[in-house]
């Protein structure tokens, strides 16, 4: 993931607008590149996609994929939906938040880890499920998640 760069961001926005893409496609590409959408992008997004700044802001806030804060180096998303609940996802979530001191939706002080909720990864017959930096995880228990967390902190 790259550090936020206004020029690079503007390039992405212009390319998307010129290609005839919609606003959210530009937001997607910004998030894929930088991990989040900086406030600095709101004005150029509004200009290029013929929306008000409020509308751009609204779109960023509406979709959970579009973060407005820089995430940690690693992003762990733990499924909170029913199927995973039925096999103890809440316990796993509590274990992670207790172990890391990060609550759902927050990033650690050293910027190493962000923990987010996710509502269903489609791994419902093998929960609890999660995803770490694009790598799916299933049949989680405390031992498994412990190993994963120590892999991140080292």
């Amino acid at each position, binding site marked *: 993931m790259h550090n936020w760069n206004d020029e690079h961001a503007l390039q992405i926005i212009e390319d998307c607008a010129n290609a005839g*893409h*919609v*606003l*959210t*496609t530009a*937001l*997607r590409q910004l998030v894929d590149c930088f991990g989040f959408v900086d406030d600095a992008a709101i004005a150029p997004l509004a200009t290029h*996609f013929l929306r008000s700044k409020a*509308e751009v802001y*609204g*779109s960023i806030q*509406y*979709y*959970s*994929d*579009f973060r407005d804060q820089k995430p940690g180096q690693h992003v762990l998303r733990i*499924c909170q*939906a*029913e*199927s*995973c*609940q*039925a*096999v103890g996802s809440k316990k796993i979530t509590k274990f992670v938040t207790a172990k890391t001191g990060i609550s759902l939706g927050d990033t650690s002080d050293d910027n190493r880890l962000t923990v987010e909720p*996710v*509502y*269903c*990864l*489609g*791994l*419902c*017959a*093998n*929960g609890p*499920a999660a*995803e770490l930096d*694009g*790598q*799916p*995880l*299933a*049949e989680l228990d405390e031992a498994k998640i412990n190993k994963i967390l120590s892999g991140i902190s080292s």
Partner: protein
Amino acid sequence: MNAQAVNRIFVPGDMLAVALGADELVAALTVEAKKRNISIEIIRNGSRGICWAETLLEVQTDAGRVAYGNVTAADVTSLFDANFLSGGDHEKTLGLTQEIPWLAKQERVIFNRCGIIDPLSLNEFIETGGFAGLGKALQMSGSQIVEQILQSGLRGRGGAGFPTGIKWQTVLDTAGAIKHIVCNADEGDSGTFSDRLIMEGDPFRLIEGMVIAGIATGAEHGVIYLRSEYLFAVKMMKEAINIALAGNWVGANIQGSGKTFDLRVFVGAGSYVCGEETALLESLEGKPGIVRSKPPLPAIEGLFGQPTVINNVITLCAVPDILAKGGDWHASLGIGRSTGTLPFQLAGNVAKGGLVELPFGSSLQKLLHDFTEGTKDGSNIRAVQVGGPLGAYLPPELFDTLTGYEEFTAIGAGIGHGGIVIYGQSTNMREQAKYAFEFCAEESCGKCTPCRIGSIRGYELLATEQIDKSLIDDLCEVMIAGSACAMGAMTPIPVQSLMRYWPEDFEDKS
């Protein structure tokens, strides 16, 4: 072992198998084969849907494919020692794949080749009957195709169960220079994964269904709205579309027919309500997924105000066989007005979960008895929730209900997308009711008050020590009657079913 012969090994590349270590398994197999100087070819197939046995490794033998279940990289040495390449005996052997009872008891139509072929091999797709339906459709007029779909009795598999043929007819009859086929692949219901499995395991089937829909209705533009959580499916569908383009099965002048259909993938951004068709259209237009009021129907004024067919993945995947075998054939499967097959998904606290495709009409009990082998934690099943977060929780007394749209409506439930989430004895039903409101509050688009505020009030009412049941019932009534879409109007379904069937969990805590 003949070191010269190529041994074919199948290791699913699907998201679940990878979550359980399939990539590490492939690496270990490669290393070990090299060490033993044995030539192997590893095919990353889709999933067979036998989720309880993932990673399910298969080898091609003269007698057919032999399966080994729950295989990890740690098993590789012993598998080679057991001569698994010839189907040798091993503690993890499941025998011939097609004879695994869990699979043999199913009637697979839509998932007939999922997990069998290389998902991106156009040749294997065609060899197994792929594009037979499209081939026929290319010889037919739009109204002839729609006639077959009407005859088939196919209904929307996304949850609402609306007759697909009527949707198609409306779009066909609506004048418009530009029309769209939108595939709803925003499979957000917990406990459902059939869309994911088919897109990862048999992507050309979905493409075939969409092209047929395009020819039938005169739409030349297709888009798959695919949720971002399905990372692998996004990649797979994009690659499959490129291969289909190169093979002239999509794009301009398809197979010399003069028909054109372009197809793209649009990735969602994490919003459950975008699975609602009008919210999905808003999202495709680059806006927040806030529901539209109907009318106008999307079939008349849909994407960018143009006539649009919106169908679920499984609905579109059912289409090729209807064209190939005829609408009558499809109508002969199932019960009453629930025709064809439904891929059920058994999930949650389940010993043997996965995908089970059967014609409509078997009872819930049969599904649970014949396939699940009970709960994962060994307790008795306390409840099942059918049809996603907005579906009813059902107690064992109702397990004799037959799987069909009308049969489920009759007990105040919905069959939805075929997801069945199983709960064991330790489940606290009041917590589940609280969660139903919590989820609605999290995912509400905020357009209408009953959903936006009602969900929060509902959560608060259930979080207090002494709950006021009549007040909750009142709130539910308001949400049912006053919400703009199913999100708010159906959240009371799980809540009220929980209060009805497990009143003991809602007694005062004091």
